[in-house]
């Protein structure tokens, strides 16, 4: 079933309902009553819904949950949580009761603090979450969709539904080797997450405690990792100086593929990898080299596109607000990995081993939950640690 909901727009003179009014209108989810939350979600709820929990304690619980395999499939988010690079804006029932202008001001402060932290590389991802048992147990539907749009309006001054919304993040790059300092900026994807997803077909967008938006930018994260590594390795700094910026971050392709692979292993996946197209390789790339870069597990799949029953970049997809737990019968979409690289990119080196393999250490990769085959492809399978050999 495909749902099409009307949303508030300036062309209509509708009364804008507040977050509080929208929360009051939510109804308990009958499906949830028969299908309890997964144990790991319930465990997190013990802290999130404890009236004595501070927001720091709630954020720690969420961070731990995000960083625990296999609670959610996004390896970028897992890594960011592992590194403490996630910034949380927790909106609780006190905030909801204090009104939309209060919530708008709170989000504004957190957004500035997040971007300020990201400017110097200390922060990366951002989660705006409304934590409330009532919201977590609410039925997906038009009221919850209106709540999503209202929260988005308070965050970005825009409430577009079924569109791809992006925020913007900056990173200050230090001067080195005669290159001047610069500030770079990236768009940051905005994605809806909710406790409603737990057990439903869009499970890869579940989050304990309520609902909200998650923001992350692979490009910003990759460049921040590179800059951190360069600070510690003068040789790498020289290599990086001779390498075009767009090639410094290609390690993210296998990571993105691994995320989709993990997400596809549920009983009702929303996305899946597709077998690779035969015989198509950019000039100069051999099958052997490609297999080395992607690893055994990923090399049988396409690094150019994947398929999904929703577009992973859409911020507030209508499909998430259909109460049916099964996947809607819509045509599968063809989705691209090529935002991370060009199909005709002649240089797969920087995607795998190349310059950026040395940017990350094994712990970084492990934190992202990469498979042994990907670790091998990155030359990290024999990595020695003080504790021993993997």
């Amino acid at each position, binding site marked *: 079933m495909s749902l099409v909901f009307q949303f508030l727009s*300036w062309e209509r003179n509708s009364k804008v309902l507040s977050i509080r009014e929208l929360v009051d209108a939510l109804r308990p989810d009958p499906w949830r009553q028969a299908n309890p939350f997964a144990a790991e979600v319930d465990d997190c709820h013990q802290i999130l819904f404890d*009236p*004595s929990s*501070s927001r720091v304690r709630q954020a720690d619980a969420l961070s731990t949950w995000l960083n625990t395999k296999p609670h959610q499939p996004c390896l970028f988010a897992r890594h960011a949580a592992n590194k403490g690079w996630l910034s949380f804006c927790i909106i609780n029932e*006190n905030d909801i009761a204090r009104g939309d202008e209060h919530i708008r001001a709170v989000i*504004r402060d957190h957004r500035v603090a997040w*971007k300020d932290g990201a400017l110097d590389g200390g922060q990366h991802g951002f989660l705006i979450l409304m934590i409330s048992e009532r919201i977590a147990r609410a039925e997906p539907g038009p009221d919850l969709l209106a709540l999503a749009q209202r929260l988005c309006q308070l965050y970005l001054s825009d409430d577009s539904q079924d569109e*791809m919304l*992006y925020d913007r993040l900056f990173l200050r790059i230090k001067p080195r080797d005669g290159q001047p300092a610069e500030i770079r900026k990236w768009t940051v994807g905005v994605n809806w997450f909710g406790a409603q997803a737990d057990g439903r077909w869009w499970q890869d967008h579940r989050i304990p405690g309520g609902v909200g938006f998650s923001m992350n930018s692979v490009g910003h994260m990759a460049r921040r990792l590179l800059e951190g590594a360069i600070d510690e390795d003068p040789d790498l700094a020289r290599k990086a100086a001779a390498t075009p910026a767009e090639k410094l971050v290609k390690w993210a392709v296998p990571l993105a593929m691994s995320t989709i692979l993990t997400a596809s292993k549920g009983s009702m996946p929303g996305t899946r990898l597709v077998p690779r197209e035969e015989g198509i390789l950019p000039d100069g790339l051999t099958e052997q080299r490609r297999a080395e870069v992607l690893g055994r597990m990923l090399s049988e799949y396409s690094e150019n596109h994947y398929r999904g029953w929703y577009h992973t970049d859409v911020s507030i997809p209508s499909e998430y607000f259909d109460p049916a737990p099964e996947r809607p019968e819509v045509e599968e979409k063809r989705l691209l990995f090529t935002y991370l690289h060009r199909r005709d990119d002649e240089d797969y080196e920087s995607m795998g081993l190349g310059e950026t393999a040395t940017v990350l250490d094994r712990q970084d990769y492990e934190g992202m939950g990469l498979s042994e085959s990907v670790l091998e492809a990155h030359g990290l399978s024999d990595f020695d640690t003080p504790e021993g050999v993997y």
Partner: protein
Amino acid sequence: MSKKQAPEDVVVDVSMKPEALQKLLEQGERPATLHSLMEVYQVDPEVYLQLAVGGAGPDSPRWAQELGELAARVRVIVRRGYEVQSNGNGKVKVVSGEIVEQVAKKEAEEVLAFLRDLNGVTVGREPVRDFAGRQASEAEVVFALGTASDREAARRRVETRMAADPVLLRLSSEDKAAVAAGMPGYVVYGLLYCAPEVIRAPTVVFEGLRGEGRLKRGRAYCGVPKNAYDNDGNPVPRPDKMVYVIYTDAEGYVFDWDWVREGEKPGFPCGYEERFAREVEAWRQQDFRLAGLDGLRPGEFRKGQAWFSQRGDCVFWYSSDSPTFAERLNEDLTVFRTFDTQEVVGSKCKNITRIVSDLQNAVAALLSPREGTDVGALLARSLIRQAEKGALEEEDLQVYHGLYGRLRQSGASADRNLYLYLHGGQVEPDRELVN
């Protein structure tokens, strides 16, 4: 867009570079309109950004200065956040706090795209591919995040907010038992529904309920809940010009909750200046939660019963279950008046410890666990105390007289807790009443 003075919160710390100013001047004189700003932005976004954060400077032509003021104003709109509404007359309103700007409907899409871009927001149907990132400027960062001091202030507010432990309010087990043991239904439902709502979002919080004793640091949480509730727990329209007040002791134990008349300040109870010692300044940075109400439901109304709250050092009594508001008569007595007829149908006798210590010898004979404490005796002593202080007026005497008459009619006596308290025993939930 109309020309107005730049708001005060625009902190300028990045002055416009001479090259950027030169580029602006080369674009030629133009009126301070949104359309002009959009033209400047389209030709060279960096010129616009520097103009918005730094201004054109006092030596530049007047039109450039005015354009800079408007650019700074747009920056405030973008940073604060805005709503877009149609006003039905061919105009679209951009509303940001108290700032309201109007643009023609035919220009709306273009204006919104401009504001979105300034806000760092991209909206579309195709994924954005900028994995390598793009170069940005200091002016763009300052435009988006504010100056270093703005950012530091935001960071500090976030840290304070994140680390703050919630203030947990609760009901003592003995008061919970008393509430369920015959208080009017609307009182119980007010606690269940109105009190949590007010506590989550008070209009004001006061401290210092009494001049001495353990309530010296007690608090009053005031607010305006969405509804009132009847004796069956149904929502009914909230009374006009009333605020709901929840009283706690210094340890956060709730002992009383009432509708009271609103004063001149919206959301503030009347007479708050004389009733409370001070307003709690930092309450906006705190979260308040009311816990421990699970399973609480009203019992059958008992009009011959009065309830002692040790936490509140007071005795409650109702001769009727008609919904009431509270009216403070003096420091010893608050009366409950019905909303419709304003008739006094109950009371809260306060400062029980003080009153009883005055009466200790005389009252001993009245305090029997079997017969209950004579609330009339407490009321009488309260009257004497106020008379001795010269604080009684004719109207007050009439209230005391009427209340005493109702007490005698109903034969109200206090629960066993008051007896235990006066005899140095441990106050506990009254099992007889609960059962």
